[in-house]
């Protein structure tokens, strides 16, 4: 191949002009003739039986076209096959404040709002579950009539080698409990959709979704329609971060209403409703028991996690596995046990947020490594460098590590930050902290297990010289359209501007599973390359015949196809397409991508495999005022093993955006709840469902960020590229915590790290107590099953479990394989 002309070049993204002129058409910008407007009536109770819904007054109001209740939606749906536990409108029970019970479609939003107020709902309040401890302790009343037992949604237990033996034989044992508070995506765009019946009578839904393919499936099921008669168009998302990855109530209701009324129906959620949709970061309590040799090598890790799932399943079964999946891909862990438990509570459902399930346990692991390094008097960077997982290896839990640039990432941030001169050496109140991470470049298995491709690309070339690339991938701001165009343009030797992208439309584009799990660049990119190479073959054969030049000598570059040995001898790209069209007829090619099979053969082994993993290291500098606990972050140095940057401008933006979002999680963002006073029903409500009160960093809060992209092309990626959208977020929270310790000598073992918590730890230290703020203990009453025993590869294992799971009277774990592939 010739030197890349597009790949790796800093470029204006292909959709930049639309974005800077305000012409990008987001879902709420879709305006159709005769369009009506819908609103949802949401429950004011966190947990209640619906006794009666009276819609008569609302229905009679002028301008109201339709009022719907749960009766209209008998069929349940959900993102995972194992937890189809949602109805578009609640039928019998509401499970959190914000759960929708009725819908109004009217001539405008104002009329719809007035009609909502006229709907009378009688509720019978039920006991409310506010915390995982509460849900573990009380099996009744059950929030759902499915799940492992009582209000426990999911319990998983996996053991890779004899961990107790490994820890017993260690020189030191570290036993730490951490807590990661929940937080939410806060995309600037509020979820919106427009449903309509096309002139043929088929359903069309425009929606701000990251996963049009899954919305397509959910609509087919919930509305009992053939999928082939439904078209889902993902409008460009105004930010997603995982928050638009589930099928949502308003999408199903809008679709039903449009079919009933034969008119377009729009729903645009308020910001408060976006907080109720949530599907954000699970609050996770975790306990790490880790055996360590005196020279700082890990002998075994025993991890327990407890996830507060909120009121519905969402991606939760997968999230549970993800809290324990990726610990092994960064560092050598010879033996590993992971037990995870997700409970239902009466709060908005948690789901996948950037990093899906992995940032919480990554926080615990990286803070514990800092404690280990401190205790053993080993530099935290050296401790990690000594145990970096080897390239092209299998982990204890049978994840296949490909290329790994982690050591280079660590060395890079150590050098750039002046770590050796700063760590442990700065004056009181100033410190630096280091942490690392890894993330999937796409989940190895689909949500709905099958043998079908995860991403498909079709190319159309015609005598105009134009190339159109069709792919189901969804542009959520990350630049997926740009990656698609860049890959095609590079292979065909034409300018990106000469390729048109048509994406995220289930009628027009081949299936791509969606913008989650950092899968798009790798999977769509590989599919695009295959389609483009097939087109190049056709053009080369035609040009070769026409010019009588051997195909092997033809070069595609700069909009021409020419003889590499006599560059003047060639055709323009347009002429080449004409030659091919004349020779073969209409030119269309396809490409598809299916990830390699995982060596894991045990139940639950489907969560974690990826074609390749990205790696990141970060050093964060902090300044802590010991008087007030106020914490500021002047600088972040970050190095990310990206394999190859398709477009460095966008790659840098993903890294900086991850640092930003990580700092928000580290310092201020929390999805917290409170009880209303008794005179107001004692309902469990969102503490602050508004942007003003849900604090997120502004332009004034951002530190200097020094970014290094580590580029060693990975054979699994398109042009060697790995993911960049999620991994760089992960080290930020633990690096901040470790820097706080370096600055003032106290541990904040939970996120967010607030001035109040720092002061509390400083006060404890001054009183001679442990210099720490954090959770006291991990609960003892989780009903763990006997773990599946899987022998690690180096102890002669073959990836299978040596036992089957003891069911201990619980329902058979049907469908676990199906959930295993889920990711964020």
């Amino acid at each position, binding site marked *: 191949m010739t030197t890349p002309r597009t790949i790796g070049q800093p470029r204006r*993204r292909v959709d930049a002009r639309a*974005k*800077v002129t305000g012409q990008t058409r*987001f879902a709420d910008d879709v305006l159709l003739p005769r369009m009506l407007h819908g609103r949802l009536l949401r429950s004011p109770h966190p947990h209640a039986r619906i006794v009666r819904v009276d819609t008569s007054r609302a229905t009679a109001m002028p301008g109201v076209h339709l009022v719907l209740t749960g009766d209209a939606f008998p069929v349940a749906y959900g993102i995972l096959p194992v937890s189809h536990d949602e109805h578009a409108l609640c039928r019998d029970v509401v499970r959190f404040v914000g759960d929708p019970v009725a819908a109004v479609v009217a001539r405008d939003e104002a009329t719809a709002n007035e009609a909502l107020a006229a709907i009378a709902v009688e509720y019978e309040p039920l006991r409310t579950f506010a915390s995982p401890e509460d849900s573990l302790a009380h099996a009744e009343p059950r929030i759902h009539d499915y799940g492992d037992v009582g209000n426990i949604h999911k319990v998983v237990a996996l053991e890779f080698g004899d961990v107790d033996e490994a820890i017993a034989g260690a020189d030191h044992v570290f036993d730490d409990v951490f807590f990661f508070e929940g937080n939410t995506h806060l995309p600037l765009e509020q979820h919106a959709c427009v449903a309509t019946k096309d002139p043929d009578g088929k359903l069309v839904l425009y929606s701000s979704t990251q996963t049009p393919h899954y919305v397509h499936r959910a609509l087919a099921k919930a509305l009992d329609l053939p999928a082939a008669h439904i078209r889902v168009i993902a409008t*460009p998302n105004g930010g997603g971060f995982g928050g638009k990855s589930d099928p949502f109530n308003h999408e199903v209701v809008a679709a039903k209403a449009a079919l009933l009324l034969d008119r377009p129906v729009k729903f645009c959620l308020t910001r408060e409703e976006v907080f109720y949709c949530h599907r954000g970061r699970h609050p996770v309590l975790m306990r790490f028991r880790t055996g360590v040799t005196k020279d700082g090598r890990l002998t075994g890790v025993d991890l327990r996690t407890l996830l507060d799932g909120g009121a519905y399943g969402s991606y939760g079964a997968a999230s549970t596995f993800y809290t324990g999946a990726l610990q092994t891909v960064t560092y050598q862990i010879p033996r590993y046990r992971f037990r995870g438990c997700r409970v239902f509570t009466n709060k908005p459902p948690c789901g996948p947020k950037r990093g899906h399930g992995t940032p919480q346990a990554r926080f615990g692991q990286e803070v514990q490594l800092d404690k280990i390094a401190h205790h053993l008097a080993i530099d935290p960077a050296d401790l990690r460098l000594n145990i970096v997982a080897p390239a092209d290896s299998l982990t204890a839990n049978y994840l296949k590590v490909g290329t790994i640039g982690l050591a280079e990432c660590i060395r890079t941030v150590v050098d*750039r930050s002046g770590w050796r001169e700063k760590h442990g050496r700065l004056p009181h109140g100033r410190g630096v902290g280091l942490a690392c991470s890894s993330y999937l470049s796409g989940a190895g298995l689909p949500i709905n297990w099958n043998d079908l491709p995860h991403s498909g690309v079709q190319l159309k070339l015609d005598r105009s010289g134009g190339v159109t690339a069709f792919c189901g991938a969804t542009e959520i701001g990350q630049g997926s359209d740009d990656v698609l165009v860049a890959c095609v343009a590079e292979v065909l030797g034409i300018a990106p501007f000469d390729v048109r992208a048509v994406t995220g439309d289930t009628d027009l584009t081949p299936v791509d599973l969606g913008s989650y799990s950092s899968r798009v660049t790798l999977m769509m990119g590989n599919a695009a390359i295959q389609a483009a190479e097939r087109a190049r073959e056709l053009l080369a054969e035609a040009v070769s015949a026409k010019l009588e030049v051997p195909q092997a000598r033809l070069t595609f570059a700069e909009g021409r196809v020419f003889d590499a040995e006599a560059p003047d001898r060639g055709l323009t790209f347009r002429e080449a397409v004409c030659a091919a069209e004349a020779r073969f007829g209409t030119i269309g090619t396809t490409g598809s991508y299916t990830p390699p099979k995982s060596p894991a053969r045990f139940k639950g082994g489907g969560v974690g495999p990826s074609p390749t993993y990205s790696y990141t290291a970060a050093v964060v500098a902090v300044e802590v005022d010991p008087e007030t606990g106020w914490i500021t972050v002047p600088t972040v140095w970050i190095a990310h093993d990206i394999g190859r940057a398709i477009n460095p*401008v966008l790659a840098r933006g993903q890294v900086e955006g991850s640092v930003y979002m990580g700092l928000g999680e580290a310092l201020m963002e929390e999805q917290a709840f409170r009880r209303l006073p008794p005179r107001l029903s004692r309902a469990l409500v969102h503490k602050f469902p508004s942007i003003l009160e849900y604090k997120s960093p502004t332009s004034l809060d951002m530190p200097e960020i020094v970014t290094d992209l580590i580029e060693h092309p990975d054979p699994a990626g398109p042009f060697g590229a790995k993911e960049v959208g999620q991994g760089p977020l992960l080290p930020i929270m633990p690096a901040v915590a470790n820097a706080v310790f370096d600055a003032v000598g106290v541990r904040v073992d939970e996120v967010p790290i607030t001035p109040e918590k720092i002061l509390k730890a400083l006060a404890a230290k001054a009183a001679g107590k442990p210099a720490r703020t954090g959770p006291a203990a991990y609960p003892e009453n989780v009903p763990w099953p006997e773990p599946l025993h899987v022998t690690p590869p180096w102890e002669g294992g073959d990836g299978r479990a040596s036992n089957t799971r003891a069911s201990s009277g619980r329902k058979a774990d049907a469908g676990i394989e199906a959930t295993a592939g889920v990711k964020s």
Partner: protein
Amino acid sequence: MTDGKVRLRLEVNGEPVDLLVDGYKTLLEVLREDLQLTGTKHGCELGECGACAVLVDGEPILSCLALAVESEGARVRTVEGLVEHGRLHPLQEAFADRGAAQCGYCTPGILMTARALLDREPSPTPERIREALSGNLCRCTGYHQIVEAVEAAAAALAAGAASATPSAESGVATPAGPTPAGGRR
């Protein structure tokens, strides 16, 4: 609630507008719904996020908090009015080239706020830019590429828009190697 139309005359992006609007409607709603100028966005409709910023008589305001009737007789400029004579404004060029728009949802509000800043202060420092944009939330970028784009646009405007406008296909200018983003030092 839906009674009570009010006559509203104003200038939007240089064009006179004369229409009857619901008296309760915000300027944001009239721009998006009555005039179909959907380039102006909303993220909260409570004055918290900055996505709906437009210029009213040159001042950036949150259009979600202003009643449309308050704009009677005013000159309103939205993102649709940034392009002049078929050419992108230097701010738009710089945002496009430097990755300042990821999802693009906060972009119109930020562009209008930055435009007001540059109209008043042609050579703002990075600190001044951060201050001016601190009411505009962006969840994608981490703000650095936005601040750099505003700086670049200021430089391009100073050098003369004509010579500073790259073609649609121009590359950018991100230097190879480490990319320190300007922050507080």
